């Protein structure tokens, strides 16, 4: 039995992320009711787990840390085919940087118990740090491969994977248990099916807070974070404005061609 943990994150919908602004007076984030969705690259992490399940006898646990609303994306993963869902949610976890997030998720993975493989998306669309996967691996004292774009050989306890490097790839050999962060190239995520949604209704999501994880306040959330945001500055407006071209399609196309001729491109 292959035990797989997939770590997922609820992020503000990337399609509406441009609506999140900084309040110039209070210097806090104005989220403007941007809905939380499953982080796009975490869909690839889920898919990697689901594809293994078609090859081997496998059990998929999906794990997230976030506000209670993040339970929806755990539910979504259950509907995609995960067997069990876990949400780490506690006011004490709020304000965590990548370090504290990885620490808390690692504690969650330890509490889930036996596992062979941990999958994460290579980055989240909101934070874009790429640190959580490798830092989870460090806290669990496991090997990690980041930027995995192909699982070449997953028979047995020693895997071969291809990971992205500039203009190519590196072929890595890794002993399980191990952590992998995946890129978009690793697979094409499936979409939700109606039967999956129906089945997921019966699956429970277990919610754990600071007491269930047995960690102290000092190690999680803002208090457990080595880094803090010291300043949030709204960008200064620049006085110069662009020349705005309107008119018919042909007129605009003519302007574009003329500009490209002037610039020496054409």
């Amino acid at each position: 039995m292959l035990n797989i943990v997939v770590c997922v994150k609820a992020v503000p919908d990337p399609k509406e992320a441009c609506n999140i602004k900084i309040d110039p007076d209070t210097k806090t984030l104005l989220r403007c009711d941007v809905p939380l969705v499953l982080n796009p690259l975490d869909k690839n992490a889920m898919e990697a787990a689901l594809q293994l399940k078609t090859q081997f006898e496998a059990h998929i646990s999906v794990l997230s840390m976030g506000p209670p609303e993040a339970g929806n994306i755990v539910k979504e993963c259950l509907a995609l085919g995960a067997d069990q869902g876990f949400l780490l949610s506690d006011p004490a976890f709020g304000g965590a940087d990548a370090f504290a997030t990885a620490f808390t998720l690692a504690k969650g993975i330890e509490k889930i118990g036996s596992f062979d493989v941990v999958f994460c998306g290579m980055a989240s669309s909101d934070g874009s740090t790429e640190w959580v996967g490798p830092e989870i691996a460090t806290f669990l004292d496991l090997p990690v491969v980041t930027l995995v774009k192909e699982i070449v050989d997953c028979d047995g306890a020693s895997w071969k994977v291809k990971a992205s490097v500039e203009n190519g790839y590196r072929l890595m050999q890794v002993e399980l248990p191990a952590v992998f962060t995946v890129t978009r190239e690793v697979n094409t995520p499936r979409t939700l099916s109606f039967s999956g949604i129906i089945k997921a209704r019966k699956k429970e999501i277990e919610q754990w807070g600071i007491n269930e994880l047995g960690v102290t306040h000092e190690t999680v959330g803002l208090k457990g974070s080595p880094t803090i945001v010291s300043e949030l500055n709204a960008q200064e407006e620049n006085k110069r404005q662009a020349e705005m071209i309107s008119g018919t399609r042909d007129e605009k196309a003519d302007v574009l061609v003329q500009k490209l001729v002037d610039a020496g491109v054409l």
Partner: protein
Amino acid sequence: MGTDHSAVWVIAEQIDCHLQSVSLQLIGRARKLADQLQTSVEVILLGDNIEQQARQLIAAGADRIYLGNAPELEVYQPELYTEIVVKLAAEHQPEIILIGSTDMGRELAPLVAARLKTGLTAHCIDFVLDKELILEQRIPAYGGLLSIVCPEKRPQMATAAKGVFPTPEPDDSRTGETMMIDIPDHLPGRIKTLEIIREEPQGVPLESAATIVAGGAGAGDNDGWNDISELAETLNAALGSTRPAVDEGWAELETMIGQSGKMVSPEVYIGVGLSGEQQHMVGIVGARVMIAVTMMPNHRYLSRWITALLMTAVSLFRN
């Protein structure tokens, strides 16, 4: 050297014995920070047959090189590289460690940071010392600029991409010391780099392209993206993209321009079907001509464009 602060470190990177330009650029920046802190710049370089490269690092501004020069260090090996850096950092307690946002750096940096139980800031676009001489690590976010600090834990660690800082002029008269480091043994041996395969990049490389056509979410679908790609080809331009275009699966990750992608400095930049979000715009440095084809210009950054054609990407290509 003063003794107020311990050193500013850079973890350098070589590929086939060629130093990565981001390593030199970070040394240039580290030099300025170290001068302000009245301390030294120290650089870790790991590889095989790289004595000459150590000289280049000194010419770029380093005072001391920790050189690991052995066949087993020829290519990045996660366990070995992490162990070496962690051991050296624990011994010498640097104030700051800067690492290039390369594919290696983005894996090695968090492995080192978590072991040292310190913070790590990704994809910085500037480093400034505040009044207390704490490193403000600046990143663009949500139409503004965030300053991240790591007030208590040391070292303060951050990554920055190639092209964020200028490459320093080499000064061959500079002197520095090179210290050979021991290669640790008794590693768990749970992970191994078997081989690294690199291919010649296809088409015009983004970083050195004189003209760039970049597309965004406004491409709408695969066909729309192909139109933008064709425009790039017609103009003999490199093709760039924004994160939404990559997330949609139209564009390759390697084409992404911006804070977490590539930094580019073309003469002419044409953005098609993109709003001009800050995370993308910070990746474009010094373009003389900036043309937007967009229905939804981000008004906060309108000033970055010279010309904006108010039309959809789709209507540019099809009647």
